[in-house]
Structure formats: C-alpha cells, structure tokens
C-alpha cells in the first residue's frame, strides 16, 4: 500500500491541482498482475479465520481462489452474495482489524493477504462490465416493505428483500442515497462517485423504489426539516406497508459542552466531511490555517487528514486519553501521522477563545489516577481558526418515540424486530457490532431474512 504525499505547504493554500491530487484514490487499485500475485499468496485456508472475522462472512478463500483461476466475475458474485456493498467495504473497511488481522499469514511473519484490495479488484471488475445484475429475484410475494433510510443498512435490507420477492420502498431524508457511503466516508476512499455507482448497481435487482427528501417524523410532532422535505410518520408507513425497516443511522452528534461552542469556525467533523464529499471541486472547501480536531475515532482521523490535504498549515488532533484508548485503528492513526497531523494525547478541551470567531482553544493536561481520568492542573493553549468536533455521533431520538431504547439505541430482538410489531431496525441505530458499513450491510441482510420469515408466518 502506498500513500500519496500530502502536498501542503506552510501557510500557503494549495493550488487546485495539488488538492485534486490529494483527493484522488488513497490506494491505487491493484493491477491485474498485482492482483494475481497477491491472490497467489492466499493459502486457501480451511474454515478460514478471515471469514469469521468478516461481519458479512464473505467466503474470502473462495473469492481469492476464483481470482487466481481467472474467474473474476464468479469471484465478485461470491463476494456480493454475502455483501452487496462489497465495493464500498473493499474501500472503507478497517481490514486491518477485521479479515486481514485474522489472516494466518500474519503468524508466519509475513504481511497478510491484501484481502480488501483483492475484493475491490473483483467487484470493480463486475461493476465495470455493466452486465446484467448478478442476482435474480424470487417470484413476487406481493408483500410491501418500507425502509427508512437509504444508507448501507437500508439498502442492504432492500436488496435482499427484493431478491426474496418482496417490493420495497425506501424513504430517504436526503437528496441522494448511500448514507455515510455518500456523505460520511473520507473523499479519498470513495473517489469517482463510487457510492452512487454502487447504489445504481444494487438497484439493478429491481423491485426497489427510493423516495427522496422524506424524513421520518414522530407521530405527534410538528413537521420538521427544510422546505424541500416531506415527512412521513411511522404510523402512515405501518398502515401502508406490511413491514417497516428502520435504518436511520446516527443523525446527531455529541457536543463539547463548552462556552462559545457556537463561535464561527467550530464545526461538526461529520458536516465538514459531508461538505467535502458533496463538493465537486474539493478546492472550493475552506479550511483553516490552524485546525484542531477533537476526538479519537476514525471520523476524527478522516477529518484531520482531509483538513491537512486541503492545505491547512497545522492540524492537531487532540484526545484526552492515550493512544491505546483511541478507537481509530493503528493503521488510521499512522495515516494521520504520515499526512502530517500532530497528535496531542492526554489533553482535554477546557475553553474556546475568540471574539465571534474561534482564535484558540485551551486544554488541560490529563492523567490517570486510581484508574480515573483526572486533570493535572497544567493547561496550555493552541491557536485555532477551525475546530472540528468528532467526539461521537448519537441517535436522533426525536422521531423515534414509541420505540423501546437502550444505551441510546433502538432495542431489537435476535430477529431485528423492534418493540413495535412489524417494525424492524438495523445499522448504526441499533446496537449490533461496531458502527461500520460492513456491520450495517450484515444487519440489513439478516433483517431481510427475518422479515421474510415474519411475512411467511403472518
């Protein structure tokens, strides 16, 4: 894997060409020769650990074997039969903590097989061929399913449900489908409008309609949202459809809860990333000279690296605990470092300084005493004209009254059914595995099977 250098030059905003280069593909796809060579490294393990490490249980040894035999289309079908968003997962999965971490080659002091890169080879090959959709629908059941949210969970559920013969209508609040694949992943991981291409491919199965600008509203509440939006209530959906699937993701973010958090220059990292993703010219996005990113997850890393690649003079990622506590993977942390992001650990934000616009932030050095994180009393300031907050997202519960919730998420049973009969849920809005695209795809796929069983029994 090679990283493209970040071309930021001190204090000088980068020319458009440099920014375009910085936002090209993070990893070049494998050439045919590289893919063959890499596939040859796979040992074709029996009952392979990598399969178990994949939330969607892709039969990895088989798809790699198929690349080796030159059956690339068959390889893609193997992948997509388990994970219809195998293309995005190949680009965005933290493979270093999933399949590739489980690769037995790690144990023989070698690098693991580049499973993600090989998966991309196979899926991209199939999608680029623009042939017929690789899966066929079962005979129409006449059942209708409403899916709320056209993110990975909702789309995965819709695809599998359509395959099982049901008709699906997806209600999406935004103007485009894809959810975080379209709005949330780092731009250099999803170049060439891949999220939209993947959705178009997925819809090729037929039987799925998407309605845009359709936000879920609570039963009693007044309509919310901007002027373009319509709203739809859960009751309306339950009246119209046999089953409802909720895949709304996490629509809200945590606040720093500091005075002055509304000053200019202080943004949610997810909004910053969304603006970047939606900008046809990345160079049109304004970035600060001195950027502070608060947080320690992969969103914080994505925001910090992209700020640097836009040409920020300094980008400092600040986290109140140590590196071992960061939820970002080691690979992502290294990506930040190699892109010139400073990482300040054991530092908690205490104040925002500035007159109308942020000028600096104050931090207190932190330490652990008796297992508790406490302030050390020492503090320091960092100059900042942009602060990106990435301290976690949470479920916007305002439109979900009536659902039983736990830990800030919708409670579901083993079959993904919520406390409301005939309403299922999955993805980041429930507690399943990690909040990852691949987990959302698995949730949606499994829920579709559960819904199918539910409808058959009804």
């Amino acid at each position: 894997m090679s990283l493209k250098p970040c071309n930021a030059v001190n204090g000088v905003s980068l020319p458009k060409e440099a920014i375009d280069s910085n936002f090209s593909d993070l990893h070049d796809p494998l050439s045919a020769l590289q893919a063959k060579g890499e596939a040859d490294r796979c040992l074709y393990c029996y009952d392979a650990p990598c399969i178990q490490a994949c939330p969607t249980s892709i039969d990895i040894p088989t798809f790699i074997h198929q690349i080796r035999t030159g059956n690339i289309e068959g390889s893609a079908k193997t992948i997509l039969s388990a994970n219809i968003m195998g293309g995005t997962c190949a680009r965005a999965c933290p493979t270093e903590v999933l399949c590739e971490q489980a690769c037995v080659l790690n144990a023989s002091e070698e690098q693991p097989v580049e499973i993600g890169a090989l998966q991309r080879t196979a899926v991209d090959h199939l999608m680029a061929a623009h042939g017929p959709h690789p899966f066929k629908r079962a005979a129409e059941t006449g059942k209708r399913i409403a899916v709320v949210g056209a993110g990975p969970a909702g789309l995965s559920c819709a695809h599998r449900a359509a395959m099982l013969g049901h008709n699906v209508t997806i209600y999406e609040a935004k103007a485009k489908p894809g959810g975080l694949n379209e709005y949330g992943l780092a731009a250099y991981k999803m170049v060439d409008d891949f999220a939209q291409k993947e959705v178009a491919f997925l819809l090729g199965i037929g039987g799925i309609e998407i309605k845009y600008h359709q936000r879920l509203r609570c039963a009693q509440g007044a309509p919310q949202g901007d002027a373009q939006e319509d709203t739809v209530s859960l009751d309306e959906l339950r009246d119209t459809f046999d089953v409802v699937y909720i895949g709304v993701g996490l629509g809200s973010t945590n606040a720093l809860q500091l005075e002055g958090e509304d000053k200019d220059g202080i943004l949610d990292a997810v909004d910053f990333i969304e603006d970047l993703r939606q900008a046809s010219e990345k160079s049109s996005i304004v970035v600060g000279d001195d950027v502070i990113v608060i947080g320690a997850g992969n969103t914080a890393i994505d925001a910090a690296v992209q700020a640097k690649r836009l040409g920020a003079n300094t980008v400092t990622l600040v986290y109140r605990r140590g590196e071992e506590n960061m939820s970002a993977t080691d690979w992502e942390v290294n990506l930040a470092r190699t892109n010139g992001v400073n990482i300040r650990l054991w530092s908690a934000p205490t104040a925002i300084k500035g007159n109308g616009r942020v000028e600096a932030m104050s931090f207190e050095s932190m330490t652990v005493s008796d297992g508790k994180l406490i302030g050390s009393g020492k503090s320091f300031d960092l100059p900042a004209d942009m602060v990106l907050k990435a301290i976690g997202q949470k479920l916007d519960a305002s439109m979900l009254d009536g659902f039983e919730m736990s830990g800030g998420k919708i409670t579901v049973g083993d079959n993904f059914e919520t406390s409301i009969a005939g309403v299922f849920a999955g993805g980041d809005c429930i507690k399943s595995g990690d909040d990852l695209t691949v987990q959302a795809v698995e949730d949606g796929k499994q829920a579709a099977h559960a819904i199918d069983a539910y409808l058959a029994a009804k």
Partner: protein
Amino acid sequence: MADLKCTIAGIESINPFWLASAPPTDKYINVVRAFEAGWGGVVWKTLGEDPPVVNVSSRYGAHKTGNRDIIGINNIELISDRPLETNLAEIRQIRKEWPDRIIIGSMMAVIEEKVWKDLAVKIAASGVHGIELNLGCPHGMCERGMGSAIGQVPEMVEKVTRWVKEVVDVPVFTKLTPNITNILWSAEAAQAGGADAVSLINTVNSIVSVDLDQMAPNPVVDGKGSHGGYCGLAVKPIALNMVAEISRNDETRDLEISAIGGIETWRDAAEFIALGAEGLQVCTAAMIYGFRIVDDMIAGLSGWMDEKGYKSISESCGMAVPNTVDWNALNMNFDTKAFIDPESCIECGRCHIACEDTAHQAIEFAVAEDGSRSFTVVDEECVGCNLCFHVCPVPDCIEMRPVENDKPYVTWPEHPLNAMKAAE
C-alpha cells in the same frame, strides 16, 4: 572446493553442465555466449541431411503455475533449419576458439545405413568430441520416419547405433525417447549397438494446453496445433525414474548416462548424479532464464559436494542407486507418523482438510474458546502417508517421525498377510 570435472564416454569436461541439443545450441553466437557464461559443453542442435528442414512460426507452448512460473514447455520446432555446412563451419570455428569446451554433434536421419554413416562421418570431421544420435524427437521428424519413430523400436536403436559406431572414432551417445513402455528395452538396444553412453530423456509427447478461444492446442499455428515435445521441470520425475531404471538394471548398470530432463538447479543436478548420471544436459531452464543460471548450478553443486565431503562428481555418482529398489523390497514394518509443531503452525487448516477429505481422518481440528485453532494428529489413524507434510505451507511445521517399533525388516514377499507367501 570440490572438483566439478567429469568424464563421460571418455570425454573430460570442466564441469558436468552441458546444453542439450535444442534451440539454445542452434548456432555460433548462442554457443559462444554459453561458453562465456561457463557451460562445460554443448550438444549442437540436431543436424540432418541437406536440404535443411523448414520450421513453422509459433513453436512453443508453456505450462505455467498460477504464480507465472513455467514448469514445462512443449515445442514443435524441428531440427536445424540451416545448411549442414554452415553448422559444421561454425563448429570448427568454435572448437578452435574454445579448446577446453565440449561440442557433441547431434544428428538424425531416415533409417538408411548409408545416410547415417555419411552424415556421421561429415559431422565427426568437424572436430566434435562425440556424436549424439537423436532417436527421440516426438514431433514432426517422426512423421518422416526419424526421431522417435526410430527410438521406439529397439531393433532400430541398436542398428543405428552400430552403423555410426562403425564409421566414427569419437564416442557415440544414443539419445533415448521416453515415449515408450519400458526404457530398458531401448537402453539395452543402444548398449548392444555399442553406444558409449545414452542420453535421456528426450521430450515427452504432449499437448501443453488448449486455446479455448481458437479451440486448438497450443502452440497454435494458423488455427491448428500439433502435439509437441514436453520438457522442463515438470518432466524431471519421469527422467529421474528412467535414469534410475537404467542405473539399477543388471544389464545396463555400467552404461554411462548423460541425464536430461528438467534440470534447473544444482539440486536437480545432484539428484541425477546420485541416480547414476555421469554427465548432465540442460535446455529448458536456460531457455527460461538465460545462460547465467549455470553460475549457481556450478556454485551450488560444488558447495553441496563440499558439505557432504564428495571430492569429485564420480564419488557422488550413483550413491542413491542401491537405495532405489522395487516396491517389493521395501520394509513393511516401517512406521512413520505426522507430528504438527503447534509453535510454528499458522492454523491454515490445509493439513486437516486434506486428511479429512482425502486420506485417513487423522488430523483433529479444534477451536478453543479464545478462537485459536489447533490441529492434532491422531496417531492411531495416521498411516504416515505424508500428504499433510506436503500440503503444509510452513517449512518444517509438520515432521514425519519414524516410530521405533523394534520390528524386523520384512518385505511383502516375506509378509504373513501375503497370500502368495501363505500358499508356500
């Protein structure tokens, strides 16, 4: 450093590495480049009567591993397609320029005494150290009554060898085809004809692959293909066996052998020498990698001989022959069991599935609570077949451990379960 000088059919060579009669020894420039690279000798590309043959375009097919390595080539090229005198003039020139290197003249002709004798005399007059009779080429020439068409008939092998021996003073090598049922018949025929040595194996008749778009065997010549001669690493096991058969056969054990067939490394060379080869010929490996590979063949063979204490090629020659026996001479009481070293096991499961599906269900697979996988040999079920040992991707992870059972050496003819024995 061990002495790599060797003597075969009375010819002394600075090392045992000769290039076999084939495209790499087709003309002056190739042979000079080979000698510059360090090869001890060459067997010149087979010469025939004028007018020379005409070759087709598209001549080689390749058998590759998934890893792009060529394990075998088949070829449909015929003998030298240049006039005889052009070849002989170049041989004379190189003999002058490279006095310490060996040149053997390879020849073939139709089954007519005068033709063989006239051609042999002409070639011998060019100053070659010996003459090799190409009785093996399995494609093209055999359709004209030459090559393997002669080599497959022991009486003709003997006759041709005798014809040539009658008219030349230099040593004669009879080159044998593997495309027969029993190599000993042709080896004994060559011996009876007076051959000073046999060279084997020539290429194996083959179709290397089928072009599924053109629906024709490779190499495809304008939409059609023909069977060709297979060579390279893949034929080494066939060649080793045929060399061993001659070496351990009472009638032919003194027949000298110039071994050919998939020699690519010093280790391959050592194996052929161990089975009784006095000299070696290489072709495919040079075609794949160039003449430079002889460097490591020389250094590696010499290093191995030093390590094992062999001072000369002749000292190591045939050392494995006494241990190459008929199945009926194997010890039925020998028992070996696989042992999997848990420390070096990387948990790929290849041994388990191979044994479970296709052998003796002798490797237990368990998953611990922490997810770690373990593979353990069940001694009672293990028959010591070596399959797990071979499929394991980690060197030395699986060891085949002989069981010390203090039982005597018992062969099948002596075995109590042998019905033939019981009938005695």
